[in-house]
């Protein structure tokens, strides 16, 4: 009797919460999202390939890829550094800085976009220094990368921080007392633990960078074959009411995003497994 009672969940609301969850998700996200695949299947394989490999679209993919990759890489390095400083060192104003890190998440992307464009323009506060060396930032791929670095800044920090906080000092102390040098401790003890969260943060920043629109569209300048990004191509096809074209570009991006998502999930699992092993 007791066993049976225990097995039965007495909590109410299974049907209600299941209903609300499924209805909301299906109507807002899942059914609309499935339209992309239905719409593109009507397009036919030949036309689909023709659209996504056209010079302009292919170039936009390349720009999106390259800038998102470089930005995520920079964010991985500095994200690790920031997380390390925030967890391991004490200094005044630490809590304020910790909160400030999330500014790119809280600030509307369009605001970030116009701000960075003006800031890095030819006569902007920061742009003028680069002008001295004849380096153009706004309206070049460098500008796009800077916008994506801004947007992706918190990802790696927020992935690494909890792992670093939970890391047991004993392991490092053991390594130290066994005569390992600082570099050895960092490379052989700490870094392997931090690699999964760094990679997960990198993938998140990369995925976000691929799809980012608001902060990039201003600083990119959107010159065909030069600084057009993939989301902008979708936008411009939509403005010409070329739904099929927009959908085809979107399908490729969605597939890439899903792959990123799977990689992130696997990395997080790997990271968790790592934690248990070290315990």
């Amino acid at each position, binding site marked *: 009797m007791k066993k049976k009672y225990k097995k039965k969940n*007495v909590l109410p609301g299974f049907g209600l919460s299941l209903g609300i969850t499924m209805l909301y998700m299906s109507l807002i996200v899942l059914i*609309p999202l499935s339209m992309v695949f239905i719409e593109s299947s009507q397009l036919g394989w030949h036309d689909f390939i023709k659209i996504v490999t056209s010079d302009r679209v292919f170039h936009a993919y390349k720009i999106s890829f390259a800038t998102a990759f470089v930005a995520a890489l920079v964010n991985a390095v500095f994200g690790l550094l920031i997380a390390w*400083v925030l967890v391991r060192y004490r200094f005044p104003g630490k809590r304020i800085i910790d909160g400030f890190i999330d500014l790119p998440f809280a600030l509307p992307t369009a*605001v970030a976009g116009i701000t960075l464009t003006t800031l890095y323009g030819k006569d902007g506060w920061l742009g003028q220094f680069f002008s001295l060396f004849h380096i153009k930032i706004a309206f070049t791929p460098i500008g796009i990368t800077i916008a994506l670095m801004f947007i992706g800044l918190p990802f790696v920090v927020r992935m690494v921080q909890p792992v670093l906080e939970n890391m047991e000092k004993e392991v490092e102390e053991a390594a130290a007392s066994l005569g390992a040098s600082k570099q050895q401790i960092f490379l052989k003890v700490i870094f392997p633990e931090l690699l999964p969260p760094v990679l997960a943060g990198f993938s998140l920043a990369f995925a976000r960078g691929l799809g980012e629109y608001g902060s990039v569209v201003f600083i990119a300048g959107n010159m065909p074959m030069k600084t057009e990004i993939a989301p902008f191509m979708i936008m411009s096809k939509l403005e010409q009411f070329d739904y099929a074209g927009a959908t085809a570009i979107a399908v490729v991006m969605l597939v890439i995003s899903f792959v990123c998502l799977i990689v992130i999930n696997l990395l997080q699992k790997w990271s968790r497994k790592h934690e248990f092993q070290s315990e």
Partner: protein
Amino acid sequence: MTTDLVRQEVKPTDGIKHAKKEVNWTKYILISLMFLYLVVFLLIPLVFIFVKAFEKGAEVYFAAITEPDALSAIKLTILVAIISVPLNVVFGIAAAWLITKFQFKGKQILLSLIELPFAVSPVIAGLVLVLFFGPRGVLGPFLNEIGLKIIFSVPGIIIATMFVTLPFVARELIPVMQAQGKTEEEAAISLGANGWQMFLRVTLPSIKWGLLYGMILCNARAIGEFGAVSVVSGHIRGETNTMPLHVEILYNEYQFSAAFAVASLMSLLALVTLLIKTWIEWRTEKH
């Protein structure tokens, strides 16, 4: 180095303190590097917004944020947030309740699906809504018949906002409810409380900070969303322009001071969001 020495040095709580002098050097270099990076990439842009906004004086600033188009953009943005955030709260609580209190097949898939909107480009979010609700979309003929316009009007903006903000409340509540377990709620039920009483008196008090946390993040995104809203809005001035879209129009018309004035309002809100967020984190850490 004798083991004794290492031991003594390692003991203190502040991490690895052996070879103290050298570590301090690294520490100051790393801290300075972080400050430099954050000043260039976060602080300067933030200060710049306000400097630019007040460049032509307070009068121009207030004129920019009180002209009719700006006011209607502010009103619409508030309306969108007022509708989409509570709906997101209902969804978030329901999804978190479902995932943390019950065992069922496909839970892992559901978890991934909730995170899905984060992986989808906002522009694609807008596109799929056009494909579904738009005049040439699947529901188009039906919506036309009942006289409901979703795309290129306010409902579309709200749905697009709901799409991009979907994960916010749920992903904050799931870990909180998971940690809470379900014994307290089970006790309430077996003592005769009905579902509603249990929720209001047991569940809600224990999740309120996580809920607030998710809500302010959801609100920030709802107010600032640009890409998805841009696709479905149709950019009708005074009607379907939200604040970010208004900023875009002003900027493209070279009205930079006005654009930054409206932008500064949203930046202020972003700062308030960060402040509340930090305060909640500080609170939960203390307890």
